[in-house]
């Protein structure tokens, strides 16, 4: 697991990220999300849609900001992180696209605040899979979905420009 400060709100605590591959209980996790199981205290994101750690940190930072000002668009801080990854304001669609599915085998768990040891224990006990560090997450990205979800111009082809396009989409969500 890796932890990063929220630069705009240091008092809220860190953003904790843990990547899991070979996940075996996605169907169960998805079910718990659907019934809004309160014991699930962190967000889970489909990892093949994450180009760079910056993408997640930005979505989480925006969620933390909106939580502070009482402006969450979704039910929980966790769902807000997933929602924020999407450039559109359609909540159901955003959660469906960036959240996990029954068939997910690789995911990123994200939690804002809390004691790192406890967060890691909770994540490891909940997700049945192999914990790896973010830098080891060399899995293929689903470029087709990324292009579709972020409406990336076909002329944009290098990774850095693609990432910038994605970031711009996340950033402009609240000022469309």
């Amino acid at each position: 697991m890796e932890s990063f400060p929220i630069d705009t709100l240091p008092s809220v605590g860190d953003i904790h990220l843990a990547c899991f591959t070979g996940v075996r209980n996605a169907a169960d996790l998805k079910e718990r999300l659907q019934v809004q199981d309160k014991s699930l205290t962190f967000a889970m994101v489909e990892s093949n849609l994450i180009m760079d750690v910056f993408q997640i940190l930005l979505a989480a930072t925006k969620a933390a900001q909106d939580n502070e000002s009482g402006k969450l668009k979704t039910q929980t801080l966790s769902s807000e992180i997933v929602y924020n990854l999407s450039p559109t304001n359609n909540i159901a669609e955003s959660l469906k696209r960036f959240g996990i599915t029954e068939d997910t085998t690789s995911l990123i768990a994200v939690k804002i605040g809390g004691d790192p040891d406890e967060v890691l224990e909770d994540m490891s006990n909940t997700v049945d899979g192999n914990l790896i560090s973010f830098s080891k997450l060399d899995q293929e990205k689903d470029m087709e979905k990324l292009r579709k979800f972020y409406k990336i111009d076909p002329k944009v082809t290098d990774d850095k420009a693609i990432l910038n396009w994605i970031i711009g989409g996340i950033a402009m969500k609240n000022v469309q």
Partner: protein
Amino acid sequence: MIHNAQLIKQGAEAKVYLAPFCQRQAIIKERFAKAYRHPTLDKKLTSRRVVQEARCLNRCQKALIDTPTVYMVDLENSLIYMEYIEGISVREFLVTAEGETPEAQSRVAKEIGTALGKMHNIEVVHGDLTTSNLMMRKETGGSVVLIDFGLSYVSNLIEDKAVDLYVLERAFTSTHPNTEVMFAQILEAYGESSKAAKLILKKLEDVRMRGRKRSMLG
């Protein structure tokens, strides 16, 4: 609100900071109200300006014009977080040994003209084109990046675009001696990339004429 920030510019309507953000260095632009206006009206106008600046930046990015990527827009506090461009301004470049050579000037001019043509094609008018607001990316060896969209707006008027170019021309003549050739090269490249170049460049002549008359009247 902004932690570990380093103030890099204090202007009349905005403060610009460099600060860590999500493991990167980011530019944070804080717009504040002018004191003499009505407070609630002020807040509305300030907020509208922030949105407009972010939208114009994003619109350029989507048209593949190199501009700072917008990271986050905090309307509550009138802040825009954006990509920090490492490099120097064209203004600074033009006084370096390399920047004084015709080859370098011609390359940069071409890039500026092309970028401005593309920007006007998507109906974005910059509003404050100076050689300080044209930067050169260190990472790419000096490709041109347009910054400071604080006065930008969307317009399809030939006149607005011509004035945009005129403002840049004035910036060149007032701060950089012997750059007539370079500015002509900017307009040449603009002529190739701007769809309405003919009309806009013709209008630029009118705008110049008016400018001259005005300065003659004092």
